[in-house]
C-alpha cells in the first residue's frame, strides 16, 4: 500500500453517502461522483460499503495497462490518475479491465472518469474529500501507523485474490481482526466466459 492512502472500513459505514456528495464537490470533476456505494445485503440489513479507486500496484493499474490511448497515467507516488481528457477515446477498456469495477464512462462525453485520490487536494497535503467528510471514519486517509494509533489492533489487507490472480493495491481495506486471511477474496470466482464453463 502507499504511504499516505485511504483505508476502507466497511464495519464503520452507515450508508449515509456523504462521500458520494463530497466527491461531487471535488474541483477536478465537480458535479460527478466517482464513489461507488454498495449495499451488500439489500433486504436483509442496511450494511453498505464505499468503493474508491484502489490504485493497484501489482499488477500496476490494469486500467492503465489496457488503455489503447495511454490516457491513464500513474504518478510517481502510485496514484492512478483519471483519464487525460485530451487522450481518452471513451472505449471502456478500463471499465472491463478493472477488477474492482471502479471506472465509469460518461457516454455522452465519451470520457472515462474515476477517482484520482483527489489529486487536487492530496498534492497539497490535504485528505481526499470523501475521507475528509466521512462521518464515521469508514474512509480514513493517512498512514497505517496513524490508523493503528487511532484504532488499536486494527488489521488491514492490501491484496485481493480474483481466482488465481492476486492484485496488490495502494488503497487498503480493514478486515476483521479475528478473520485475517491473505489475500482477501476479491470478488466472485469466474465460472463462465462467453457461455463456456471454465471451472
Amino acid at each position, binding site marked *: 500500500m502507499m504511504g499516505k492512502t485511504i483505508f476502507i472500513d466497511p464495519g464503520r459505514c452507515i450508508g449515509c453517502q456523504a462521500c458520494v456528495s463530497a466527491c461531487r464537490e471535488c474541483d477536478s470533476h465537480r458535479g460527478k461522483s466517482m464513489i461507488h456505494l454498495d449495499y451488500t445485503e439489500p433486504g436483509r440489513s442496511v450494511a453498505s460499503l464505499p468503493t474508491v479507486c484502489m490504485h493497484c500496484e501489482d499488477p500496476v493499474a490494469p486500467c492503465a495497462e489496457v488503455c489503447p490511448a495511454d490516457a491513464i497515467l500513474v504518478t510517481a507516488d502510485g496514484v492512478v490518475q483519471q483519464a487525460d481528457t485530451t487522450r481518452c477515446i471513451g472505449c471502456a477498456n478500463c*471499465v472491463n479491465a478493472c477488477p474492482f469495477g471502479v471506472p465509469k464512462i460518461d457516454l455522452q462525453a465519451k470520457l472515462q472518469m474515476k477517482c484520482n485520490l483527489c489529486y487536487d487536494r492530496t498534492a497539497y497535503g490535504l485528505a481526499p474529500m470523501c475521507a475528509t467528510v466521512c462521518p464515521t471514519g469508514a474512509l480514513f486517509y493517512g498512514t497505517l501507523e496513524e490508523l493503528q494509533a487511532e484504532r488499536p489492533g486494527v488489521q488491514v489487507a492490501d491484496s485481493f485474490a480474483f481466482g488465481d490472480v492476486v492484485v496488490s493495491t495502494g488503497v487498503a481495506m480493514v478486515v476483521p481482526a479475528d478473520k485475517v486471511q491473505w489475500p482477501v477474496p476479491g470478488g466472485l470466482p469466474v465460472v463462465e466466459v462467453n457461455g463456456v464453463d471454465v471451472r
Partner: protein
Amino acid sequence: MTAAPPSRPLPVDPSIAPPGTRNFRDAGGIPADQWHADQNGETLVPTHCCFCGVQCGMYLRVDRGGKVFGVEPRNHDINRMRLCPKGINAYQQVNHPDRLTAPLLRHSRDEPFREASWDEALDFTVSEIRRIQNRYGNDAFGLLGGASLFSEKTYLVGKFARVALKTRHVDYNGRLCMVSAAGANKLAFGIDRAGNPFSDILLTDCLLIAGSNVGECFPVMTQYLWGARDRGATLIVVDPRETAIARTADIHVALKPGTDSAFFNSVLHVVIKEEMDDESFVGAHATGWEEVRDKVAEYPPERAAEICGIPADQIVQVARAFGRADKAMAWHARGIEHHSQGVENCLSVINLCVATGNIGKPGAGYGTITGQGNGQGGREHGQKSDLLPGGRSIMNEEHRRQICAIWGIEESELPPAGTSMMEMVWQMQRREIRGLIGICNNPFVSLPNYAVVKDGYDATEFHAQFDFFLSETAANAHVVFPVTTWAEDEGVMANAEARVVKHNKAQEPPAGVRTDTWVICELARRLGAGAKFDFPGSREVFEELRIASAGTVNDYYGITYDRLDETGGIAWPCPTTDHPGTPRLFEDGRTYHPDAKIHMQVVEWHPPMDPYTSEYPLSLTTGRTVAHFLSGNQTRRLGALVEQTPRPWVEVHPSHGFRNGDPVRVVTRRGSEVFPALVTEAIRPDTVFIPYHWPVPTAANALTIDALDPRSKIPEYKVCAARIEPAERVDEVPAPPTAPGREAYPEAQVSRADPLPPTSPQGRGTAERG
C-alpha cells in the same frame, strides 16, 4: 505489504497561501477581519451547518463576486472536518433558482399569488392583524416560530408576539421535536439541556442509544459512537428497526413502538434486583427514589417482554451491561419522545441513569439529541408558549416582572401562557384563532393528521408565512415574505450539547430578500411598537438576549460574539465574560432545583393512544432519512439529495408477502396512501415505517395521529395503528411549490421511475459499461 514510496515535492508550496485561507487546522473560528481571499479570489467563511442539532462546523466557499458556491470541511471541535450529505449540499440552497425574491400576496385563497412590494405586503399584513384583533380580540392572532432560526430571531419571535401583537398564542415547531425531553429534564434536574458533551461518549464504558437513528439523522455524531466502540465500550441500541448503528451494536433491542417506558422500567427493575444500583449516590443526590423503586417492582422482565415484544433475557442483558459498567451514558432522541407518554419515556431513561449513579461525571450521564439546528436554543428564549427569555416561566410572577422591566412594559400588558402548536391548529379549526403568521416552519408536512391541519389553516382569515422557498404551508398563505437563508445573516445556535456556536454571514441576500429580523422589526414598527424593536441586526438583538437571560438557569450573559469567534463555541450556563462555559452539568453534585437534588419521577407505562384492532393490527412508525431534513422544504429541491432519496417508501417485513417496489396501501384511522414497498428483515414484522419528509399524497403525516402528550404536548408521531394491503399504483411525489411564473427546478422533479433506496450512487447522465 509494499514499502511506502518516497515522499514527493509538492507542486505548490502551501505556505505561500495568505493567512486565514485553507487553514485546515484551525479549531475555532476566524475573526471576520482575517477572512482573506486566496489567489483565485476565493474566500472561506467559517460557519456551521443549518440543519441538525450536531451543528457541524464548515466553511462556505465564496467567489470573487461575493456569492456562495461551495463548501469546504472545517476542523471544528464538534465534527473534526466531517460532514453528512445534507451539510455538504446545504450551500446549494443559497443561490437556488427556486429562491423567493419578492413578497407574494393575494387577498383570498381563490386567487393566484402576485408579486408585491415590501410596503404593500407589510401594510396589508398589519391591516389584517389590526382588523382581526379589533374584531375578535388580541388572542385571535397567533404566531408560530421555528427552531431552525438563530436564537436572536427566536427571542424576537417571542417578544414580538407578546409586545407588538399582545397575543398569548405563540409557539414553535420545536414542539414537534423534543419538548418531551425538555419537560423531563426540567422535572428531574431543573435545567433543560443534555448533561454531557459529545466528547464524553468517547470516555464511556456503556452507551445506550434509545430511539435514535444516529447513523441517518445525526451522521456526524456516529464518529463518537464508533470511537467509544474502538475503546471497547458496549453499545446498546433501542429501536424497532435495525438501523446502521443497531446493525453493529452489542445489543439491539427491537421493541414494539410505544413501549419504551415499560422497557426502561423493567431494566431498572433488574438493576435493583441484582443490586447494581448506586444507593449511596441516590441517597445523597435524589428524591423520590422509594416511589420509583416501588413502581418498577411492578415491571419484571417477563411482563415487560410481553409488552415490548422482545425476549425477557434481553432486558436482563441490557440491565447488566448498563448497571455493571463503570461509566454509562444514555442518549435518546425522537424515537422515545414522539409519544403521548414522551415525558415519561425520557424520565424512565433518566431514572435509570440516576439509579446507577451515572450523572455528572466524565463519560457518565444522559443527553437528548436535538433534531433541529437550534432545537436547544430555540426553546430557551421565549418563543415557546409557556416560556419567557432565559427559560423563565410566563406564569411565574417574579419572572414576569423581570422580563417586563427589560422590555419596558407593564406586567398587566404581558399575556399569559398560550397553547401548543397542535392545539393552535385545533383552535384555528374552531375559529378561535383567525389569523396567523408562520416563521420558517412547514406544518402541512410536519404536523400529524394532515386533514386537520389543512382544515385549520383553511379556516384562518389571514395567514402569512416567512420562508426562502415556497413551502407547502406558504403556498396556502395570503402573504409570503421572502427571507434570508442561514448563510446571509449572522447569529447563534445552541447545539445538542448546549454549546452556543456562531454562524457567520457569507454573502449578501439576493435583491428583494430581507432578514427575518428586519421583517419582524418592520411589522412591529407599523404596529406601533417600533421603539421596542429598534434592532439593526442580530448583534443588537443578542446584546438584549444576553441581558434578558442574565441570572437565569439558561445564562447567556457571559457569551459574546467576540468570544464565540475566538473559541468556536461556549456551552451555557455562562454567567460572566471570563467564565469558560459549562460543557458538563452537575459536576459539583448540585442540580438546578432549589434543593439541589435530582427529583426522580414515578413512570407508569400505558398503551399508545391509537388502539390496535383486528382491522388495524400493525404499528406505523415514522422517521427521517439521511438525505432529507424534517419537512423537506430545504432539501427536496437540491439535486444530489433528491437523487439520493427521491421519494418515500414503506418499509415492511418479508412476512407480509410483498416484493420490493410493490405498491402498498397503508391505511390508518386518518386516511390511506400508497407507497412502494421496501421489503427488509431489518424491521419488526408487526411494524411498518414511512419517512415523513414529503407532502400529500405521499405524506406519512396524513396517516399519523394528532394525540398529544398531556405534559409536553408533543404529538404521537412514532406509533399509530395501521394495516397494509396491496394496491394498484404508487402515489406520485408532487413537485415542490414555486413562485408564480416559475417552473419547478428540474432537479427537484421526481418521476415514478425513480428507484427505491438503497440506490446505487450513480450520477445522472453517467452510465457504466462492463
